[in-house]
Every structure is written in structure tokens, then in C-alpha cells.
């Protein structure tokens, strides 16, 4: 059914993280997009903004729901996926590649250790569902 790439790390709010050197690319998991239904809007921070691990960095909306996005790690926003403004549904169709949301410079690499592996996340999701 759902797939969780093994090269990513995950948090309990269903964000994924891909480590690229000193930076972390963040999106939401396939499970999360499936729960939301068709994504119609994402509100993301701007380049240069600071995000704090465990705190919200944006919002994601379907037609009849709005959910907060939580930063898996702290750091400064390096890039934002502006394409999602016009095609937010990419988060549904391609959550791990085209659906990426922000790229953050990781302030404290130890925060990455606190995240779940794909295997752990899969059992976390199984328990939640």
C-alpha cells in the first residue's frame, strides 16, 4: 500500500526529511497526503526565515481541512518549493520528490538522530491507523 522510502527520516507529525549535506529537505509522507485528501493550498515560510524543531512552519489545506506543518529540525530556510503555489496537488501525486516543501540548513545535526527510520515510521503509522 503506502511506501516510505528508506533513505528518508520521519517525525510523528508525518513530515519526512532528506539529508543533503548540511541541509534537510522537508515534505509530508504518503500516509499524511492520503489522510488529507486532495491538497488545495500550502502556506510556506520565506527563504531566510528561521524554523524551530517541533514548531509549526506552515499550513496545508484540503477542501475541508487545515493542518499545521511542523518542522522536524531547527534551522534557516534555504529554499522553498514555490511550484506548490500553483500545483499543490503534487504533494498528493509525488510526496517525496516534486512535493518537497522547504530546504533548511540544519543548525543541530543531533536533531536528525531523534527522527524515525522508515521501518519505525511504518509501524508508528500502523499503530495510529
Amino acid at each position, binding site marked *: 500500500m503506502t511506501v516510505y522510502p528508506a533513505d528518508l527520516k520521519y517525525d510523528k507529525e508525518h513530515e519526512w526529511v532528506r539529508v543533503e549535506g548540511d541541509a534537510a529537505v522537508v515534505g509530508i509522507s504518503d500516509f499524511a497526503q492520503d489522510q488529507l485528501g486532495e491538497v488545495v*493550498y500550502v502556506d510556506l515560510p520565506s527563504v531566510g526565515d528561521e524554523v524551530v524543531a517541533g514548531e509549526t512552519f506552515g499550513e496545508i*489545506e484540503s*477542501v*475541508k*481541512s*487545515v493542518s499545521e506543518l511542523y518542522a522536524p529540525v531547527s534551522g534557516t530556510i534555504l529554499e522553498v518549493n514555490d511550484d506548490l503555489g500553483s500545483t499543490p496537488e503534487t504533494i498528493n501525486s509525488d510526496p517525496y520528490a516534486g512535493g518537497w516543501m522547504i530546504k533548511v540548513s540544519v543548525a543541530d545535526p543531533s536533531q536528525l538522530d531523534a527522527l524515525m527510520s522508515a521501518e519505525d515510521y511504518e509501524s508508528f503509522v500502523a499503530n495510529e491507523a
Partner: protein
Amino acid sequence: MRFSPASCDDRATMLAAVGASSIDDLFAAIPEPVRLGRPLDLPDGVGELEVVRTLRGLAGRTTPATSLVSFAGAGCYDHYVPSIVDHILRRPEFFTAYTPYQPEVSQGTLQNIYEFQSMICELTGMDVANASMYDGATAFVEAALMAARVTKRSHVVVAGSVHPEWRVVLDTYASSGAITVATCPVTDGVTAAASLASMVDAQTAAVLVASPNFLGHIEDLAAIGDVAHAAGALFVAAVNPALSGVLEPPSVFGADIVVGEGQPLGSSMSFGGPGLGFFACKDAYLRQLPGRVVGRTLDVDGRGAFVLTMQTREQHIRRERATSNICSNHALNALAAAVYLSAVGAEGLAEVGRSSIAKAHYLHDALVASGLFEEVWKAPYAHEFALRYTGDVQDMQDALLERGYLAGVDLGLVDPGLDGLVLFACTEKRTRDEIDSFVREVVSL
């Protein structure tokens, strides 16, 4: 029981199905101490004939403005309502329906709201409008709150020439601490851009003004808008839509949000309610818009259809972070406005405005010429104006009431600072004969 089709036998059937021996069994969850152990202390119910008799009796103990020659305005106007309007309002498919949450069986309400939104945009020059608010006053306050969200500032400056009731409503909502309000003093019946400029700064979320203002005068919207924008504040203008056929829409002067009281568009005065708040703004602020909005989309068969949209702004989804708590609005009054505007069209609306303005000016000049009234301010006015009466206002109004006239609104009762002034309004319903007779009666007092 009236209005309930269930018979005694039906009730017995239902009780048996539920497994209850009596109706009171069903209320067992209500603890004894909080049960009302007595009948309600209200009169017994009566049949329709007696209901009608009682209500006709009460209605008979009023002398409605519509039965008089009325020159009362001050936010509520006696315009002619074409017959077709009420015939459509009485369609039960419209008035007995709930909020159109099931679009497949609510296309009538939804399409009407879409058309209403379009008409409000046309009148105001704005990009988007919502499905309606309670009244002009609450729409005005919602505009201030929205401006605070958009600008992330919390101080607003309101023109002192705005309707006193609206300003009280603004202050009342502001008592929550969400915004602070400063009032710009009135100079010669209008808002002076210079005094406004001294009150507006980088903390100002919005400058709010009405034009024509409460005193009937046309404000210098361009200058006021410039003051607001120079400080990075939003410019909120309230308008009377009955004059939208003859006055430029506030968009021309850079308004960011336009609101108003839509009662003049097809709603009866009804002692001041229900009226119709309308709310329109620029596209850029759409996500901060309060209240419902209808959009056009397609159904699965590819047909154009209408639906409540952008709902994540609203209380049922965003809860404590919603753009407003508003849920019910004034959809039926919005229907009245849409039918009214369809009936009069752009030409008719312009005629209503021109006629109301011409009659107000005729009355104004005749009253001043009588020598009994003095002009207070020279500022341009539309279909409403204030004059100082040289005698006792109450005595004058009482005497004219005896003769079948509602002689304007005694401003001293609305704002003690305006004691001695009378606010007169004309709509297209007034005739030259009525105005001439009224002036003769005033002179004869």
C-alpha cells in the same frame, strides 16, 4: 399539537418502538433538581385567527414611517421595492432552505449568492465580495478586524463622521482587546485629511470612513485613501449602495475594503433589521475574508455549478483561528438585493440615486429659504443633510407628526454633540408636492 403531524396513536407506536412507557422516560437523563417541575408561565397557545388578531393589534399600535411622509434616513431608507422582489422572497425553496452545505440540492441559493457577489463587486469596484454579513455596522467592524490581520497591526483610525451606532459597535468589539480605535474629529461635516494624517502612523492597520457620511456629506476619499496608504494602512470605505449608480465606487480612490448597509436594496426598514451587511475587497486579501463565499466550478458531468468555497477560513474548519465567528449571514436579504438590482438595472439604480439626491437638494434649499433652518456645513451632500432648526426640534417634530410627517431624525437624540440639528433624507418616493406641503407646514408652525 400545532405543526406536528404525529397523532396520539403515532406517539404510542413510537413510544413502544423506543421501549419507553411514557414521554417522561425519555427525559430521565435530566437530573431531578434541574427539571422544571411546573408548566411554563406563558399563555396557552391559540389558533391562527387569534395569532393574527394579536399581531394585527400590535402592528396597529404603531404609526409606521411608510404610512407617513417620511424624511427619516440615518442609515435606514424608505426606497421603493418593486413587487417582484417579495414574490421571489416568498418562494419556500428559498426561505425555508438552510445554508447551502449540500450543493447538489442548493444551486438556487448558491447561484444567487454568486450573482449577488458579482453585483456587489460591480457596485463597489472591488475584486471579490462575500455572501453577506449581518448589517453594515458589523461588516464595518469585520473590515477593521480583517485589516488588522492583513497588516499585522492592531490600531485603527475611524472617521468621527461615521454613523455613531457603527462607531459604538466598533468600540464594543474592540473591548475584546483585539484592536484599539482612535476617532478622527469631524471638521465642517467631513474628515479633514490633515487631521487624519496626524493620527495615522506605522502602527495603523486601517483608516475607516463612510461616504456619504452619517451627516450626508461626501468625503474626500482620494485624500483619505492617500493618508492611509502613505502609512501602509488599509483604506476601508463604507458606501450607501443606493447611490452606487451615481457616485464613483471607492475602488477609484484606492479603497482596499468596501462595506456597507444593503437595506436600501430591496429590504424593508423593519425597525432596523434584518438589514444586509455587504463586504468586498481586493483579491490580495481573499484568504483573510470573513464569512462565506460562493465559487463556480464543474460537476462530475462537466456542467457549471456553484459551491461554498475557501471554507478553510471559516469557523467550522479553522475554529479558534478562523477569520471570523460568523456562520448564519443574511442570505435572504442578499436575495432581495440581487432581485432588486436585477429589476432596477444600472439605469434604474442611477435614477434612484439621481432622484433621491435631487429631492434632497430641493428640500434642503426650501428649508433654508424658509428662514427656520440654518445650513451648518457647506460640504457637498447627496440624499441626506443636516440643518440647525431655530426652534425646539422635539416640538417641531411632534407637531408635524400630527400632520402626517416624519420630520427627519433629531440628531440630539443620537449624539448630544449634535443637539439642535435635524437630519433629513429623501428617497425617490418623495414627491415635489409632499416636499412643498411639508415646508408649508413647517412654516405654519
